[in-house]
């Protein structure tokens, strides 16, 4: 898994070598690209059957982002076969490579690159086998749809060539030449493989799995993380119809029943039979800035360039982001079964391998006795309840060996117990010189951990509720350039003097973890809002201001494209409407995203209407254009929901945002009138992660547009109606 910074990657593109650097540079080593490095055997990635069926294996998981389809396209294209001949197997500890977690928009980079590399070498190997079998030179063979043909018409199919272990080869660092002819699948908007089942009710999700003898379970969670179980009398619950078992281990309470609704009712009865002490430990009345600043933090400088500047015009601002919820539309679900000392877990976790590790630690078993299989859930947008419900399931499977136990979280469970998006406070200050350029930049961001994913059992919710609880490990921040709370805290702009500091907080008042974009959502919101403020202070157009502080031609291209498609030059302001612009390169090394937004603000009601959005994206070589558009559109609309509506509420004892009524999200009435995404394709360039690229820019563009429309500079997320009315 490629969390390492500073690997130089080689990619052959049309004969020209393209170097792409991540910082800092290390010595060149004979490493394999991306996920191949950990799993170098070609047949771990690609298998070819005598029946001509090609099976591709990836350690990444389909989250609804279309990765299954895109990866399949990469493999099919590189092998020069029709996509319909390829099956793809995802994330299964028994069958696929270990690619860690499907996150960070790294799937195309990690797995796509590995597959492309592996498939290229498979194709080369097959050509060699064909040449030997047909007794010709490899160069004389033509290849079409998995069949090699000699000049005199003799043929050898892929299936005929692979009769044994021919593909059990280690990959080599040197990339294979590109496949002959034009792309057959890469660059096409191949229809997503998973959608037909989803529109017709065919089984598609872990929630749809029905195993023989399966039992249904519900967990009864404490009313709050700090709540203590004072007493429980579960006798009556045990006698309810359909109840098979009531499980109690410390504060972990669950009921298993032979029917799903019976489990629901029994859990409600069990909840009523429990008495809890819920201390008032949450800082209910504090604003986010106060609350976040009150936590202990360690100052970690991540950029120190030049020195402070005297003179010039100095501006400063503080931005905040509240706790927010992933809010997966389908609450988390898992099925676990213990048979003959071996566990099987069906889970929508983003990382089946790290999950297995954590579950094995939880149960004190050998990892090899457990198999975790990814089955799709609803969109997770990061670390939601998926891992925790898997832990619930294995604990209950252990309590009832032999039977599959299905645990489904209720809506209130998911809302109240998912690890939330972390609150953030960002302080920005900059100096403009007389010519309107930024000469000095200072950025400080305070935030708790954006990554408490399992790996360790202590990061599983149930583990912390057992009679002998696991302790959550002290979180540590991921280093730059990936970053966590400090992701995208370093602006992509040319800043001669800059200091950026990440004030990492190991403890938070709520359990926080990775949510789409991690720190990038708030950091880009803050930076891009502030760039707008600077531009206005310098009396320069906000787009022109950004252009003058950038050199990377790809950044300039997306900015210009978004501005052009929006009609930025020549925009005519109408009453109550305004426009806003924002740009970011996700993690400063993944996809480029610029967007322009027009809003209409009704101050009296606080309603912000998004009239139109024009976005431009460069994600390197595009595998599936429609897939990219889908992700960006979704990212923009989701970010609009976060930005205009969402904040987690809690009182002194517990989280109050426990359903959609108490945590409203965007509905159709507030979706934009018009939203267009324009793509810049870069054939030959590395695949760049795109799934999270729009979250931050959308937030900032909205805030900038609100300012343009009505003069309200809102620096505290969300820009909700109450705030707009009150100001």
């Amino acid at each position: 898994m490629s969390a390492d910074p500073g690997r130089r990657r080689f990619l052959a593109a049309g004969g020209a070598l393209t170097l792409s650097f991540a910082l800092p540079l290390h010595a060149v080593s004979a490493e394999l690209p991306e996920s191949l490095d950990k799993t170098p055997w070609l047949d771990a990635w690609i298998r070819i059957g005598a029946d001509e069926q090609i099976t591709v294996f990836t350690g990444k998981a389909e989250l609804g982002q279309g990765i299954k389809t895109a990866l399949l396209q990469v493999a099919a294209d590189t092998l020069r076969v029709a996509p319909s001949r390829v099956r793809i197997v995802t994330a299964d500890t028994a069958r696929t490579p270990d690619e860690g977690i499907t996150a960070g928009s790294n799937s195309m980079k990690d797995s796509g690159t590995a597959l492309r590399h592996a498939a290229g070498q498979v194709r080369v190997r097959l050509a060699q086998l064909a040449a030997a079998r047909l007794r010709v030179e490899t160069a004389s063979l033509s290849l079409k749809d998995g069949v090699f043909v000699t000049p005199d018409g003799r043929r050898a199919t892929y299936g005929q060539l692979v009769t044994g272990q021919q593909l059990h080869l280690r990959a080599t660092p040197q990339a294979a030449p590109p496949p002959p002819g034009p792309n057959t699948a890469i660059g096409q908007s191949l229809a997503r493989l998973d959608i037909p089942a989803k529109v017709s009710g065919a089984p598609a999700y872990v929630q749809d799995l029905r195993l023989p003898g399966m039992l249904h379970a519900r967990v009864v969670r404490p009313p709050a993380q700090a709540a203590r179980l004072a007493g429980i009398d579960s006798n009556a619950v045990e006698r309810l119809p359909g109840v098979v078992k009531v499980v109690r281990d410390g504060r972990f309470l669950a009921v298993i029943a032979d029917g799903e609704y019976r489990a629901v009712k029994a859990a409600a009865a069990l909840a009523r039979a429990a008495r809890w002490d819920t201390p008032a430990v949450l800082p209910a009345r504090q604003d986010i800035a106060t609350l976040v600043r009150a936590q202990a933090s360690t100052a970690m400088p991540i950029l120190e360039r030049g020195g402070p500047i005297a003179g010039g015009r100095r501006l400063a601002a503080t931005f905040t982001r509240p706790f927010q919820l992933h809010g997966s539309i389908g609450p988390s679900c898992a099925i676990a079964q213990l048979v003959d000392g071996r566990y099987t877990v069906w889970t929508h976790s983003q990382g089946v391998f790290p999950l297995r590790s954590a579950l094995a630690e939880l149960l004190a078993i050998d990892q090899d006795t457990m198999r975790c299989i990814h089955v799709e859930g609803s969109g997770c947008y990061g670390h939601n309840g998926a891992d925790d419900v898997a832990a619930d399931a294995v604990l209950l499977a252990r309590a009832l060996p032999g039977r599959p136990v299905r645990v489904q979280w209720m809506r209130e469970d998911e809302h109240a117990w998912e690890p939330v998006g972390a609150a953030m406070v960002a302080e920005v200050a900059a100096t403009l010189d007389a010519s309107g350029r930024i000469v000095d930049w200072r950025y400080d961001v305070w935030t708790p951990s954006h990554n408490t994913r399992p790996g360790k059992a202590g990061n599983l919710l149930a583990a912390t509720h057992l009679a002998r609880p696991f302790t959550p490990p002290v979180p540590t921040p991921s280093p730059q350039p990936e970053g966590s709370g400090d992701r995208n805290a370093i602006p992509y702009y040319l800043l001669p003097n800059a200091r950026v500091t990440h004030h990492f907080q190991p403890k938070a008042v709520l359990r926080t973890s990775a949510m789409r974009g991690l720190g990038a959502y708030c950091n880009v919101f803050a930076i891009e809002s502030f760039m707008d403020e600077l531009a206005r202070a310098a009396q320069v157009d906000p787009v022109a201001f950004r252009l003058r502080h950038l050199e990377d031609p790809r950044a300039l291209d997306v900015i210009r494209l978004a501005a052009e498609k929006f009609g930025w030059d020549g925009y005519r302001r109408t009453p109550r409407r305004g426009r806003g612009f924002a740009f970011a390169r996700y993690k400063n090394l993944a996809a480029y995203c610029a967007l322009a937004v027009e809003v209409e603000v009704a101050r009296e009601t606080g309603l912000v209407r998004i009239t139109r959005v024009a976005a431009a994206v460069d994600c390197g070589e595009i595998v599936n254009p429609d897939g990219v558009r889908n992700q960006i559109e979704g990212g923009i609309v989701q970010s609009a929901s976060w930005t205009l509506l969402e904040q987690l509420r809690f009182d002194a004892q517990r989280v109050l945002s426990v359903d959609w009524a108490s945590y409203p999200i965007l509905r159709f009435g507030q979706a934009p009138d018009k939203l267009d995404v324009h793509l810049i394709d870069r054939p030959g360039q590395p695949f760049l992660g795109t799934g999270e690229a729009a979250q931050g820019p959308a937030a900032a563009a909205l805030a900038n547009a609100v300012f343009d429309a009505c003069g309200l500079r809102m620096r505290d997320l969300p820009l909700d109606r109450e705030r707009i009315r009150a100001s």
Partner: protein
Amino acid sequence: MTAYRLQVNGKQHAVDTDPDTPLLYVLRNDLALNGAKFGCGLGQCGSCTVLLAGQPAMSCMVPVSVVGARPVRTVESLGDARQQHTIGVLQQAFIDEQAAQCGYCIAGMIMQATALLEREPQPSDARIRAHMAPNLCRCGTHMRILRAVRRAADRLAKDKR
């Protein structure tokens, strides 16, 4: 446990279950139909939307005891009712527009839209937006969902001519 006779997707089914069991669980567990989904169980998100006597209803709020003889339709019934999983016009429109990310809300969206298009063959865009409001999408697929419903409406109108 009580015996109920339910008409689902044009077929009669005999079901034995507790009277207060929401229709959602009956559909999923007794009849093995996946279309209606558990999203909240509170009538707040619409993932469980089915048609009950032609009207959209959140099946998590429908106790099986109140259904009676009223026909129930789920996403499995669109298109040719005799075949499971047949793609109907709406389903095809959702596929054509690739109107899904995680897709969990989509079956509910399709049923909600079906109720509209069966009553108002040529709804305005504003009408579609207002009609779909009870259904939540967390992935932000709203634009495509609206386009898919529009596309299906246009296609149905064309078929009628």
